[in-house]
């Protein structure tokens, strides 16, 4: 056996998958079952005690989901992954392993509006306190660190304006503070950015977006980089201390550099319950096979559309990091040289009313609250995804009242530009 090293596209098709042992089926089968028989009582006890490899119950693991998990772990360069029901579920499960009531985590202010809500309201009710920092001001993260800080959370390409975060600079802050850096890599996908290569300790995704890619299946995933030492100072007892629910096993001691993914599975998913349907896992796996092809087309189309909008008289400004004039272009060239993603915003000289008028006139773009679909999408964040924020927070997160967000699909770019042109024209 030679240690020949296949590339990203090969992994996107093959990683984690192997012809089925029983039937020889080449596509990954949908193991639509709740549970799996044990060989005997000893086998059952070994599985429940985390001592043997194997399946128990789909809320803990499922063979279809396992293929998805290994594939995304391979694409991100992590040691292991755990698939869950949605990106939001991934965030709850990750923080449940890290936070005790009264603890803090620092989050970039520029995030998906749903994450801002989850952190501000739901997590607050668990006693997990979010401290906001400005991703354009690295020192604001340093200033936010306290003895109760347990993690730092950022997006690689930030919703809604597609701004690029300086992952390496923030990972330095995290390392100094002795806390893991969690990166939501949804808008980049590992095809554009692999946050682990830049210092991330944990990567999360909404699989619903570019990884699945077809707007048909919800899912989320957590990738363990295997880089963080959970044993120091008793700061992360879920990983370092004996777990009473597993006869006193210490997860880091037992599972080494994939202990965090195991904690998410056997303490998070098992007890909180947001399991991913194997059918959704199958749909997302099929999507991932074409991720490199789709992602490049998404980016090429997005750049062409952004250039068109930047030259249009009705447009006040375009925020797309792929444009040479954009304030994030330097970071885009460093972190995402293949393309700056396909989600970005622009603002209209006519303000809020012009935005509403544009959305109503578009014929190819769909007006809906999602991104990362094969289809091109449009939304007015101030009245939808970011509507629960107050006006100042809307502006700070890049979702002011005059802002329109696009998610560019893989149609012919000429048709997308023509649709925008007719809608902007009259």
């Amino acid at each position, binding site marked *: 056996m030679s240690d020949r090293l296949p590339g990203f596209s090969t992994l996107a098709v093959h990683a984690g998958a192997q012809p089925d042992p029983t039937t020889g089926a080449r596509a990954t089968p949908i193991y639509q079952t709740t549970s799996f028989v044990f060989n005997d009582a000893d086998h059952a006890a070994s599985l429940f005690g985390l001592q043997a490899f194997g399946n128990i119950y789909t809320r803990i693991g499922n063979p279809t989901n396992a293929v998805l998990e290994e594939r995304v772990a391979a694409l991100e360069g992590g040691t*292991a992954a755990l698939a869950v029901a949605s990106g939001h579920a991934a965030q709850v499960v990750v923080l449940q392993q890290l936070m005790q009531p009264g603890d803090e985590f620092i989050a970039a202010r520029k995030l998906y509006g749903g994450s801002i809500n989850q952190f501000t309201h739901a997590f607050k009710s668990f006693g997990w306190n979010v401290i906001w920092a400005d991703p354009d001001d690295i020192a604001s993260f340093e200033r936010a660190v306290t003895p109760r800080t347990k993690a730092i959370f950022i997006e690689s390409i930030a919703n809604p304006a597609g701004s690029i975060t300086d992952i390496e600079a923030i990972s330095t802050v995290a390392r100094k503070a002795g806390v893991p850096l969690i990166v939501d890599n949804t808008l980049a996908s590992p095809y554009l950015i692999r946050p682990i290569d830049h210092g991330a300790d944990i990567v999360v995704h909404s699989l619903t977006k570019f990884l699945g890619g077809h707007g048909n299946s919800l899912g989320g995933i957590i990738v363990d980089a295997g880089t963080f030492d959970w044993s120091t100072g008793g700061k992360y007892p879920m990983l370092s201390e004996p777990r009473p629910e597993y006869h006193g096993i210490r997860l880091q001691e037992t599972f080494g550099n994939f202990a965090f993914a195991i904690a998410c599975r056997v303490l998070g998913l098992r007890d909180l319950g947001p399991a991913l349907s194997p059918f959704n896992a199958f749909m997302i796996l099929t999507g991932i096979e074409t991720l490199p092809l789709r992602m490049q087309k998404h980016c090429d189309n997005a750049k062409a559309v952004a250039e068109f909008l930047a030259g249009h008289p009705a447009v006040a400004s375009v925020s797309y990091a792929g444009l040479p004039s954009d304030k994030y272009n330097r970071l885009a060239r460093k972190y995402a040289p293949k393309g700056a993603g396909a989600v970005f915003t622009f603002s209209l000289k006519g303000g809020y009313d012009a935005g509403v008028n544009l959305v109503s006139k578009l014929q190819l773009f769909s007006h809906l609250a999602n991104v990362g679909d094969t289809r091109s999408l449009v939304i007015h964040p101030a009245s939808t995804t970011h509507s629960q924020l107050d006006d100042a927070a809307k502006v700070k997160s890049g979702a002011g009242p005059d802002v329109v967000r696009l998610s560019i699909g893989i149609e012919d770019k000429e048709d997308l530009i023509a649709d925008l042109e007719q809608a902007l024209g009259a």
Partner: protein
Amino acid sequence: MNHDAYPDNYIRSILNSVKSIAMVGASPVNVRPSYFAFKYLAQRGYDMIPINPGHVGKELLGKPFVASLADVGRPVDMIDIFRNSSHIMPVVEEALTLDPLPKVIWMQLGARDDAAAAKAEAVGIKVVMNRCPKIEYGRLSSEISWMGVNSRTLSSKRAPAPTQGMRLSLNRMSVGGGETAASDRAAKNKTEQS
């Protein structure tokens, strides 16, 4: 050998060639990692020998406990050390008095002693540190993939359905895009700090 990042072929050649494994620090307590690593390796067909002076006279899964490596009384291919880093050197020194010498000395997950490794390598013994043979066997055979672990291998052949006592093929293609260079780097940094 670079002990920060082992090539898959190095680990693969060890697990494919050794037959007998003496486990120093094997525990009869069935929730200790040494117990279930011992059990797994026995199920995968290795000739396992439990070494623990505190349990002589008892058995571990039908194998009698032995007090020390010198008391095994027959050649062993590999010594798997389930002790903390600070207790590695005496075990390696004892291993170096055996005749014939073992082919491999393996230190468990979390255990690393570079000076002891250098002594063993100087006499031609292969050394692995800070790894678990159960995890590595499960990874290279992809049996571990059920729990979402990145096996860093690929295969287009029909997977076997593992049964008790069955040896699994470890000869899958290793992958580069899925390398865990980041975790190897972190482990190295941790070792340098401590």
